């Protein structure tokens, strides 16, 4: 019996698997095993976790916040998607921009701008106070739920919209022809088909809330949350004993993993084959029924765009220390950011630039191996590459610091660890993007090129890669925009002198210097927005085509 020779793809698979194991599996195992070790006080992390009330409260609070935000996001996202898919009305084009807002406004800026409006010193709070009305403190549950809802409802909106658009409207006509009135048809025919998509995106929101760091830390205050406690125990435990941070991280991994398994189960069970996806034409709304829908949609759009307006205004408003002098304009904040404190901008550009390029190379190659060159190793690559979905940024950061702090691969302290953290966090997206494109490229193209005498690696470069260019370009923009906005992992792994813009904004918010934070925020939004505008207008790239 002759063996197939180990070809070049096999060795590339081995290399990819080794890298993923080193930077992903090894840190994860470090976190999990450290949680089982005994702390200096002699108690294991799990005993402390169960023994101390604040940890128990944190777990309960986190689950509750996740559940509540999931519900509120769904309550906004689903009706909005239905209205957008089925009706046309004045100003509808604005709704199409909504998915962009989560992309353009990083979480840390969303939290900050909400504070500038409704915080203790916020515009609205002060205006109401002038009239003698005291609105409740924005810190705590009120702020957490409000801000996270308006960040995360877009995920439900996008998921639901895609499902409704893919739904065959003929099924509704069939139901009505069988004598079921339109309203009940919707409940009996469409809801069961689109429900799995809604549930799946709702569960995704749940995992994002559990892992959320920026909003939770900035607005949580006296509400104990898992991600905040994890970060705090990391900051206080550095160099000593990593038991508590690991234990808390393990709890968050467990919660997110459960949600993700539930999500996979729902998606795999609920995949109905729609034979002929002829979507319904949007029906123009007329008369009075138009008003509530238009107003409702407009309110959501305005609230979603509010952070953007606030950050622009804040960046050009004079401030003395923490006091914003609204109405007095200045360019001093922007000048300071560019002239005397531009390090965070430079750091962000360098780290995110390197990470984006590496991420595209790694995910294109890994996607190609997973989709086109299956061998005994590729399932491992596939599983490992989706692992970061279960790790919040904080957890990943802690794992990386624990694993590469001195010893044989001392990355901690260098900028490299920030790049690695970026790279790993965006890996699942990059690989899924590449795989989706590759599934649409028939295998026969590769065979055709090889049959014409071009060796396998050159065939990949000459035939497959050119066809992937549009999707790689789209991925490049999306990876870039999400990477420059990354906070939760980088804030854990960075060292002094490596502050990125989100880290700097985070620290300025902590010191209540909102004008400075807004100035950095505006630059950050610009760095995100410019590539998106160039990609969509100059190169006509459909950014959401493969999502």
């Amino acid at each position, binding site marked *: 019996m002759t063996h197939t020779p180990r070809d070049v793809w096999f060795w590339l698979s081995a290399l990819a698997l080794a890298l993923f194991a080193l930077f992903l599996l090894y840190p994860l195992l470090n976190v999990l095993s450290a949680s089982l070790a005994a702390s200096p006080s002699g108690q294991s992390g799990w005993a402390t976790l169960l023994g101390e009330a604040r940890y128990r409260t944190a777990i309960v609070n986190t689950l509750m916040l996740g559940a509540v935000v999931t519900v509120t996001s769904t309550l906004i996202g689903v009706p909005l998607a239905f209205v957008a898919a089925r009706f046309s009305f004045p100003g509808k084009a604005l709704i199409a921009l909504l998915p962009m807002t989560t992309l353009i406004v990083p979480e840390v800026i969303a939290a900050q701008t909400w504070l500038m409006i409704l915080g203790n010193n916020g515009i609205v709070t002060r205006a109401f106070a002038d009239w003698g009305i005291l609105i409740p403190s924005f810190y705590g549950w009120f702020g957490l739920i409000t801000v996270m809802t308006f960040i995360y409802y877009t995920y439900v909106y996008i998921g639901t919209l895609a499902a409704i658009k893919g739904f065959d409207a003929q099924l509704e006509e069939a139901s009505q022809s069988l004598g079921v009135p339109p309203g009940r048809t919707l409940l009996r025919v469409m809801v069961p088909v689109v429900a799995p998509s809604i549930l799946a995106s709702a569960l995704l929101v749940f995992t994002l809330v559990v892992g959320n760091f920026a909003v939770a830390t900035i607005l949580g205050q006296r509400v104990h949350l898992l991600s905040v406690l994890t970060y705090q125990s990391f900051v206080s435990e550095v160099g000593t004993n990593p038991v508590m941070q690991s234990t808390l991280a393990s709890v968050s991994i467990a919660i997110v993993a459960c949600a993700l398994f539930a999500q996979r189960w729902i998606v795999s069970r609920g995949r109905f084959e729609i034979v002929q996806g002829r979507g319904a034409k949007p029906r123009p709304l007329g008369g009075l029924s138009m008003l509530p829908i238009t107003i409702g949609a407009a309110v959501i759009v305005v609230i979603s765009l509010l952070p953007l307006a606030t950050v622009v205004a804040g960046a050009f408003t004079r401030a003395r220390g923490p006091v914003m002098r609204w109405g007095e304009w200045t360019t001093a904040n922007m000048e300071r950011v560019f002239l005397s404190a531009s390090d965070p901008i430079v750091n962000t550009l360098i780290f995110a630039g390197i990470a984006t390029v590496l991420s595209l190379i790694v995910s294109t190659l890994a996607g190609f191996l997973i989709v086109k060159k299956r061998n005994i190793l590729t399932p491992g690559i596939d599983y490992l590459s989706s692992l970061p979905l279960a790790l919040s940024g904080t957890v990943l950061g802690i794992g990386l610091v624990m694993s590469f702090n001195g010893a044989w691969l001392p990355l901690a302290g260098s900028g490299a660890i920030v790049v690695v953290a970026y790279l790993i966090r965006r890996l699942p997206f990059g690989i899924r993007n590449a795989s989706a494109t590759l599934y649409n490229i028939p295998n026969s193209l590769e065979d*055709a090129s090889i*049959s*014409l005498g071009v*060796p396998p690696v050159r065939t990949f470069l000459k*035939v497959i890669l050119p066809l992937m260019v549009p999707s790689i370009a789209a991925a490049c923009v999306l990876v870039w925009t999400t990477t420059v906005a990354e906070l939760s992992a980088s804030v854990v792994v960075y060292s002094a002198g490596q502050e990125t813009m989100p880290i700097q904004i985070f620290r300025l918010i902590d010191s209540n210097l909102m004008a400075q934070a807004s100035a950095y925020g505006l630059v950050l939004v610009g760095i995100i927005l410019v590539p998106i505008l160039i990609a969509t207008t100059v190169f006509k790239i459909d950014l959401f085509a493969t999502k």
Partner: protein
Amino acid sequence: MAGIRIENLVVGYGTEPVISSLSLEIADGTLFTLLGPSGCGKTTLLRTIAGFVPVRAGKLAFGNRDVTHRPAYLRDIGMVFQDYALFPDKSVYDNVAYGLRARRVDETAIKTTVSEYLERVGLSAFAQRLPAALSGGQRQRVALARALAIKPTVLLMDEPLSNLDAKLRVQVRETIADLQREVGITTVLVTHDQEEALALSDRIGLLRMGRLEQVGTPEDLYARPVSAYVADFVGAANILPVEVAVPTISGASAQVRLDGMSLEVLAPTGLPAGAAILVARGETLSLGAASGATTNAIRCTVRRRQYLGGRTSFRVATDAGRDIVVEAHGAAPTFAVGDKVSLRFDPVRTLVVAS
């Protein structure tokens, strides 16, 4: 150019390989068709010849050149795919030039060759178009030009016509047949369509579960099938269980009993006595008045009559209730449903095979 020699080829893993110990000789310059239902291993065999599927055991040679373990890109093959596999981002010209550029042919020579082959497939005017701007038939002709332009040792075609509609299929079939004859290249074509196989092939290999059931000319497979399976797959046939009275030692005919009636039909040498299968093509049967001649005939009743233009199809039932289809060409007999008729078997065109 060269023929293809396959010796004791085994492909696939485990105890039930996709292809088990297959040997086949394809003569230089001929068009050989691998015919069979889906899952019979014909595409696997073609892809093994191309070099995309590794050989577990056995030998594969193009002429005197052993290519058993040679990678696909060094085998010097031209391949035509079911879904055309044209590079969507390259023009028709660049698609056809692709293999020549890989061989570092200089651009002026490439231009001559590409023009020549585009001319041959009648697409000279489309050189600068992208594949998306072509019809299905045009795409497959570009694919054919691309495969032939590199002047390969062998041409391999995987269901090249199955994505085309009926009318185009006949047109592209003609193009393939003409080009293959002009170029004189050894060609292996995979198809599940027996009509396509009969029309195009010099020889046909009928595959069944990874083994060659019969190899021969189209006439061999149609008129002299070695088994009921071949008879049924190639064209339509009445397959009837019969009893062989005396084993055939040599000679060409045998006496068989069908529903108690004795018939004289063709038989292979060495057919044992006992149960066997009678293969009777509809057009070899003839109907006569019930009162007419009774040699080599059995009594039947007409159950259905269908006028189909060039022929008339009858379904008749024997007294034992067995259905038999008779195709009458030209002026059809005027029998109506319910008429008693005499069904005559042609002793030199009806065949008995082992069951």
